[in-house]
């Protein structure tokens, strides 16, 4: 779960990492009041779960409450890179002497943490790692051993002397965040040295492990701030893995790998998937009905491709589940159903005997994809 900047900073303050004074606003008036409170000037920043805000016009310096109101109203009115903006953060302006970059992330390829620091602030870090790797200090931190003093000295050694102590303190607290709050990414870009010698986190990018939210109720509660699509909410409630995409073939399958593969096969057949939906292991009538409702709630869907491989799940039960779901859900588009694996023949027989007008049976994944593509492309199925 990617946190908004102000939520990340809330965790920073709890960890005693210094941040600028800031106030969240949800309207132009609130932004004006916040800016007045902050001394008449501020930086207004969109709060979205996506990066690249600076370049995209999502961070603006304002020199009056009126300007803050204007900018906030502009930001709150539009999508930012496809993300709905419902909050902006107004922060005090600080006298910056120098900008740096630091981050700690869980490194999946080594199974430990990777901490990075550079004296070059405001850079695209992937770009810097590629073009001038010597400018970027990197240390791998074993989870059990933890971040040690020598790690910290190596990291902060690339900074000017006067910033090292403050940065060292922050990087230790960032590692504590990974361990205490299950953060898989803590990034500060820029980390700044102020003209009075303090080191402060000007930005905060924090990702919390979804699998660990059960032990962080306070962070789980931060989800309430995110605009959520009602269809997504319904899928989540039912424990279905649903991701909206932009094609018009609705997809229901069992198992993440098989569903990903189904999207690819549909693309090869000349159509595009409208979604990813993993119905999970059971594929019962209940799960199938909810899945159908979720997929069909997308008006772009012109056909549905149900791709089930029966392992422990038996295809005859899946076939009954599909038919029972169709009793509950009024499907206006054809459902191409492909069943394979355990009891596949029995499952196909059940579908054939029911001869439901909306069900188009297919023998293989490839054939099913072709049929679904033909339907959405206006050819005869």
């Amino acid at each position: 779960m990617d946190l908004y900047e102000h939520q990340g900073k809330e965790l920073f303050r709890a960890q005693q990492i210094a941040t600028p004074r800031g106030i969240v606003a949800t309207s132009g008036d609130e932004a004006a009041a916040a800016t007045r409170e902050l001394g008449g000037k501020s930086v207004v920043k969109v709060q979205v779960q996506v990066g690249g805000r600076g370049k995209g016009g999502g961070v603006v310096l304002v020199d009056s409450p009126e300007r803050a109101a204007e900018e906030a109203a502009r930001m709150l009115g539009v999508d930012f890179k496809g993300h709905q903006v419902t909050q902006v953060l107004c922060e005090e302006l600080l006298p910056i002497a120098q900008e740096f970059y630091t981050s700690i992330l869980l490194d999946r390829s080594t199974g430990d943490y990777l901490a990075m620091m550079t004296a070059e602030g405001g850079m695209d870090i992937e770009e810097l790692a590629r073009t001038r790797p010597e400018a970027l200090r990197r240390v791998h931190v074993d989870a059990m051993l933890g971040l040690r003093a020598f790690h910290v000295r190596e990291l902060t050694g690339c900074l000017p002397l006067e910033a090292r102590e403050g940065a060292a303190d922050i990087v230790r607290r960032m590692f504590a965040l990974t361990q205490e709050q299950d953060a898989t990414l803590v990034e500060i870009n820029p980390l700044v040295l102020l003209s009075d010698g303090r080191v402060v986190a000007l930005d905060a990018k924090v990702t919390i492990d979804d699998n660990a939210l059960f032990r962080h109720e306070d962070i789980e509660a931060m989800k309430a701030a995110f605009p959520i699509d009602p269809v997504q909410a319904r899928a989540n409630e039912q424990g279905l893995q649903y991701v909206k995409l932009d094609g018009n073939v609705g997809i229901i399958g069992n198992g993440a790998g098989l569903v990903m593969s189904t999207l690819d096969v549909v693309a090869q057949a000349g159509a595009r998937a409208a979604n990813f939906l993993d119905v999970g292991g059971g594929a019962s009538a209940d799960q199938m009905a909810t899945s159908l409702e979720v997929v069909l709630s997308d008006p772009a869907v012109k056909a549905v491709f149900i791709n089930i491989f029966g392992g422990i799940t038996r295809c005859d039960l899946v076939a009954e589940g599909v038919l029972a779901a169709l009793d509950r859900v009024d499907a206006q588009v054809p459902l191409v159903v492909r069943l394979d694996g355990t009891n596949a023949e029995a499952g196909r027989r059940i579908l054939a005997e029911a001869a439901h007008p909306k069900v188009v049976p297919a023998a293989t994944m490839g054939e099913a994809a072709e049929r679904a593509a033909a339907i959405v492309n206006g050819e005869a199925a």
Partner: protein
Amino acid sequence: MSILVGADTRLVVQGLTGKEGTFHTLRNRAYGTAVVAGVTPGKGGQDVEGIPVHDTVADAVRERGANTSMIFVPPRFAAEAILEAADAGIGLVICITEGIPVKDMAHVHSYLRGCDTLLVGPNCPGVISPGVANVGIIPPEVCRPGRVGFVSRSGTLVYQIVHELTQRGIGQSTCVGMGGDPVHGIGFIESLALFEADPGTDLMIMTGEIGGDDEERAADYVAQDVNKPVVAYIAGFEAPPGKRMGHAGAIVTGSQGTAAAKAEALEAAGVRVARTPSQVAELVQDALG
């Protein structure tokens, strides 16, 4: 012949007394796997259909000679269960549990570096050596004994592809479900190394998906150290960046971890990469001649 699980496997099941644990353990036993014990703290002395339950893995090792563990305990306790098994001297731990916090797995990863214990998973379907032993939830009905080794991040793609191999009469030595989590136990490289050394395996299949760089690293390994033919399949060409596709580890981050980059790396290493799951069986048949 086979790798990881076989006739020598003496299985202890951590979380045997739970619903899933009981269901799959009994299926594994019915297949012929030697299930020697279960572990549920506080339930020592009971039994499940004749399988004795102990309070600790150490007891199961001492009293039943367990050498392999399968884990079905809930996510919040699963990392602890892996550590307990390793500490008790279990040689192979197969963790089925999905949803373990990744920080917990980073700690497990750190601890296992100092042990001889091999971990498969978590969030995996397990390991089957057809005709010999099944440890996990892979449906044995779709498998048949043979000489193709299989390692996969996805469970259902194993079932799908193995089913198609079996229909063509191509059997499998062992199928390893390495799991879909970002921090996991053995992966493509370790599995390919075991298959390369296994006289019962003639060819290997690996199926990957978006996220991380396991496939790219496997490609380097194949180019340098693998002589047997390798066939691959990668899922997720259509997955948009930044969206998690079901598995915790299946996410394209920025420009990292795309299916296209993985397929390209594997092809450059001489691996035959199928474009659809069904094409895997065709390529295997061609390669076997």
